[in-house]
Every structure is written in C-alpha cells, then in structure tokens.
C-alpha cells in the first residue's frame, strides 16, 4: 500500500531511540481496545455468575480483600477467579497455537485439534485414567504434555524429507496419525469399566471445571515464555504469509523460523490441553475472526487473535455453566458448537480471491 494513503490511519510508536518503530493501524488498535474491554466484561460476568449465589457487590468486596464469609472467600478466590483466568489464558494459548500453525503450514484450516496434538494428549490421559485410575492427579498434565509432544514429534519426523518438512505433509500426517491415536483411545474407552470411561470422557470434552491457582500459574508461566518469542518472530512470520519463495527472497531464515513456529504451536496447545483437555476449534476460528475484524501487521494480528481466543473460551465456559443450569456443559463442547458455524460463516463471507 502506498505511504500517502496509509499514513493518516496509522499510529507510529517509537521505542528505544527508534530501534523499534511500530506503525500501528488505528482500526486495529481500536479493535484491540474493544476486544480487551469485551474480554474484561465477560470475565467480570463470569466472576459474578455461579451456583453459589453471591451479589455482584460482594464479589467486588471479596476481590478487594474484604472477607464477607470464609465460604464466599473460598468460592470467589479458589473456584471462580482461577477458573475465569484459566479460561482466558487457555483461549489465548489455543488461539496463538492455531495462528502459528496456520502461518507455518500456510493453511487457513490448520488447528491443533485437527493435527494430532489434542489426540496425543487425549490418549495419554485416557490411558492414565483407565489403566491406572489410582494414579495421582499430578501426573495428568505431564501425561497430556508428553502425549502431545510425542505425537507432534512423530508427525514432524514422518513429514520430514530430504527437502525439509513440507507444510502440507505436516497437516496430512497429523490427520492420519490423529486417526490412529484416536482409534487406540476409543479402544480404551470401549473396553474399560464404564465409570472409568465416563471419568475420562469428561476430561476429553474439554472442561475448565477444576482449575486451581497452580494451573493458572502453569498457563501464565508458559504464555509469558512462549508468546514473546512469537512476537519477536512476527516479522519473519509476516514475510511467510506470502509464501516460502517470497519469504526466502526477503531474506527470512525460513526453515529455522518454520521449525520454531511449529514447536511453539505444539507447546502452547500441549500445555493448554494438559490443563483443561482438548478444546477444539479455538485455534481454527480465532485467527480468522481477528483477520476479518482488522487488517494488521503480524504482531498486532497475534494479539488480536489471542484476545479473540480468550473471549471465545471465557464465553464458552460461562455459557456452559449458566445456560443450562443445573446441568453443566463442558467448554470444549460449546466452543465446537458455536465455533464451527461461526467458522463456516466467516469462510462464506470470504471471497475466494481475497487471500489475506
């Protein structure tokens, strides 16, 4: 785009003696602000909603540190607050994972739950739940994490050729391997005791039900480590939007960047899945939604994507526990049920010629 038309609609941010200069499109900035406000609103409603009736005012006072009763303290501080934060964090992580995966594989339909990462985590957790029901809850996140990493490594290894790993191969390998892994999972579910199968099934549906401060710390810690790497890579990532040839022409170290991106995508999804179970479609939808709302540079696009993901999962968790009370529906089912139709609408509104 020409400099003359672009200039008025951009905000230029200069940091560190102009070593970093950011030209931020105004519309994207406004979008980011509104999304942040929406997220805060959803999180507030989430904090005020629950089976344990607490008035909004009481929630606010509890959060300010005024003890109304130890029970209310407990509900707000130990149940609602970590749950609300975990939902937002998990959403942001899955969304970033999806955006990164889509960028690295140059395919707008890539999602952690379609390429075997979720299935690897699921198999590990189901195996643990069904075969060693007495094992410690402590092991579950680790099992999920290693399951996800193992499947991701297998996909990476299988899709690697002498010419390097093809992005298309990565996705197709993912689909093949996830079908394989899922068949073992369903064998375990079908031939185990019904109660154990049911216990595993609730985790498989993706539920934020039982998150505590440790989970929040895990999620936040990994986000703090991984998200800045993505932002640092954003320039290379935006070059890669135009295809490998262009990116190489622009001097981007393609193969390295690609591998780092895939690794981060897997790590983000694996950590999020290990805490709340497989949450499908967030990684698929959030980047598309971010793209539709505002065109932005890669860095800002990632932030918008993360915000979208956080809103989506927070909303799904809120709907899941409030809409059909007293019956609670896991967030993963809500994300799938609202996510896929939204996704189809988004796609229908795209003209095939418009690439980004």
């Amino acid at each position, binding site marked *: 785009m020409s400099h003359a038309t672009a200039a008025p609609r951009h905000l230029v941010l200069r940091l560190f003696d102009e070593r970093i200069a950011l030209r931020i499109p105004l519309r994207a900035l406004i979008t980011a602000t509104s999304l942040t406000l929406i997220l805060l609103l959803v999180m507030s409603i989430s904090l005020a909603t629950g089976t344990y009736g607490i008035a909004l005012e009481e929630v606010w006072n509890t959060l300010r540190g005024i003890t*109304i009763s130890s029970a209310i303290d407990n509900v707000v501080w130990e149940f*609602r607050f970590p749950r609300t934060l975990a939902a937002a964090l998990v959403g942001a992580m899955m969304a970033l994972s999806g955006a990164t995966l889509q960028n690295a594989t140059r395919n707008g339909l890539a999602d952690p739950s379609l390429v075997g990462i979720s299935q690897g985590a699921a198999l590990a957790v189901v195996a643990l739940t069904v075969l060693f029901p007495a094992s410690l809850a402590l092991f579950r996140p680790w099992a999920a994490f290693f399951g996800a990493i193992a499947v991701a490594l297998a996909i990476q290894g299988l899709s690697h050729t002498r010419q390097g790993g093809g992005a298309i191969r990565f996705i197709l390998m993912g689909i093949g391997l996830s079908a394989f892994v899922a068949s073992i999972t369903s064998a375990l579910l079908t031939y185990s005791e019904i109660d154990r199968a049911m216990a595993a099934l609730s985790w498989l549906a993706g539920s934020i039900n039982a998150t505590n401060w440790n989970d929040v710390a895990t999620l936040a810690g990994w986000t703090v480590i991984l998200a800045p790497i993505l932002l640092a890579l954003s320039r290379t990532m935006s070059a890669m939007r135009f295809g490998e040839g262009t990116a190489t022409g622009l001097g981007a170290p393609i193969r390295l960047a690609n591998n780092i991106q895939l690794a981060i995508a897997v790590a983000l999804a694996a950590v999020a899945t290990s805490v709340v179970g497989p949450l499908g479609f967030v990684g698929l939808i959030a980047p598309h939604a971010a793209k539709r709302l505002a065109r932005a540079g890669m860095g800002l696009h990632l932030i918008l994507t993360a915000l979208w993901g956080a809103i989506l999962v927070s909303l799904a968790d809120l709907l899941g526990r409030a809409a059909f009370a007293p019956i609670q529906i896991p967030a993963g089912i809500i994300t799938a049920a609202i996510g896929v139709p939204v996704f189809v609408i988004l796609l229908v509104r795209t003209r095939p010629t418009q690439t980004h």
Partner: protein
Amino acid sequence: MSLRTLFALAGLALTLAIPAFAQETRNVTAANGTFDIPVAPQRIVALNDQIIALPLYELGASVVGSAGRVDAEGKTFMRGGMDTLGIDYANTDIQYVGQFNALNVEAIAALQPDLIIGGTYTDLAVVDQLQSIAPTLVIDNGALGLIETLRTLADVSGQSGNFEARYQSYQANIERTKSFIGDTAAISATTTFMFPEADDLWVYRANLGAITQVLSDLGFAQPAAVAALNATQASWSAELIQQLDADFIFGFYRQQPDATPETIRAAYEKFAPGWCAALTACQNGQFVVLPGPTFGSTMTGLELALELVENNVAGRPFTPFVEAP
C-alpha cells in the same frame, strides 16, 4: 455496602459457621489420606449417587447433596434411587451437585457440607478443590468390595450401629438360605450384563454390586471360564456363550423404557441368536433377569438379591446343569 450490612453479613456467616466448629472431630483414614472429620456429620455431600448417596441415605445418614445423572429429557435423577429406595431429588432434601464426572464445586460449596465422600472415579483435581470446603474422602470401592465399602460409609457417617445390625440380619439370612439349599457349592451361577443395544455381553466374576456379593456369600460356584478371569469382568464373544452355561444365569433389567425384562431378554437373543436353545439354564427356565437394585450397592439391594436368589433356587424345583461329556 454499608458497614452495618457488612457486620450483619459477618454475623450471619459466623452463626452458620458455628455448628461446624462446635462439632467434635475424629481421625479417619481413606484412600486419599488421613482426615479430621466430624464424629456425627450433619451435612454430607455424596459424589456418586448409586455407590455412595443411596447407601448413606438408607443407613440414616444426613445427605444434603449428591451427584446424579441427566435423562434424555434433561431431567436430573439419581440412578437406582427410585427403584431401590423410592427416593429422588424431587421427594428428598438432597440437592443435585452435577454428574459424577462433571461436578459443580460451587453447588457443593453452597450446601455448606461438613463431609464430602467420593470414589476413585472422582476427578482428583476436584477432590483437591473440595478439601477447601470440607474434608473430602476417597473410598476405593473396587478394592474394598461391597461389604467393606458399606461398613466404611457407615463408619464415617456415624451410622455404624445401623449398618452392623442390618449386616447381622443379612448374614443370618444367608445362613438360613444356605440351610434351605443344602450344598451350595454344588450349584453354579453366572452373572451377565446386557445393554438394550445388544452390542456386547459383559460377564462378571465379581464386583457387580449386591448380586455377585450374595452369590459368593452363599458359596455358589462359577463356570470354569468365568472363574478363570483375571479381571472382575470381561466382554464375551457370542460364539462362546456355552461356556457360561450353569445352573443359573442372571441378567438385569432396569427402570427405564428400553431396558424392560422383555427388551433385555430380546437383546440377549439378538446378540446371540439361539441364546436360549444353546443354554440348558435358559431351556429349563433358569436364565433369570433380576431388577436393577440387585446389582446396586446398597443394603436394600443385598437383601433383595438374597431374597430373589433364594426364591429362584430354593423356592421352586429346578433342573441341575449337567456338564456335557
């Protein structure tokens, strides 16, 4: 919020908290550690309906909340509640607190329980959260077996006296039934479970609630193939049903429209065409489908299972099974 309301609320909270503090406590050890629990718990939440809430309720414990199920119409119910004890959420003070694998911790907190009891099927992350509300015990019913599970539940809920009295009369009834039958070890029985969909047949060596307990207390034998199982249960190939032949074969119907005695019998025939013709037990009218409470985990279920088995084995003539040469 004004200072006055705050004081009022604090005062209210204090009065609500007093009973919990005033209670005497004692030390108990469960599968997940040792806990200080009230000597006489007044507000118990059960994390499973069939295995925990029903036995607690029938022993006279004060259950204020229980996990349950959701039926096809979206109505919550306690499995086995109506057919075993005639109770449900609608006709008791028991509140629904989620499904056993999707518990609602806030609903549990709102009930202000002084004791929470779950099992090995309970999500351990949820158990950790619940510890901040009240001591939460994990009872490993698989390892304990039915009688010890009931004894433990009675003990922690302060109802040991009720349990021991009922258990004694159950044992006396077992002896009475044995005296009616004579050499019980000469009689073989197989416990099977069939779902209405007729996809697979499950065979239980042990741990199908009251019925397997009663059969083993009576000293009945099992077919060799069943006795040889490593696991407590296995799904069985239709081709091998003749391995299940015995003096008596038991199946189960339930209080739900698709699991009536008639549909369950039809499911056996659909799963293995010629089921009845292939099994001498069935030919002789000794394939018996029992009502749901007999595979439940209650004292009532034990008493009912014993009566029904006694009635089928001692209350009428039957044709003994002769192993094919």
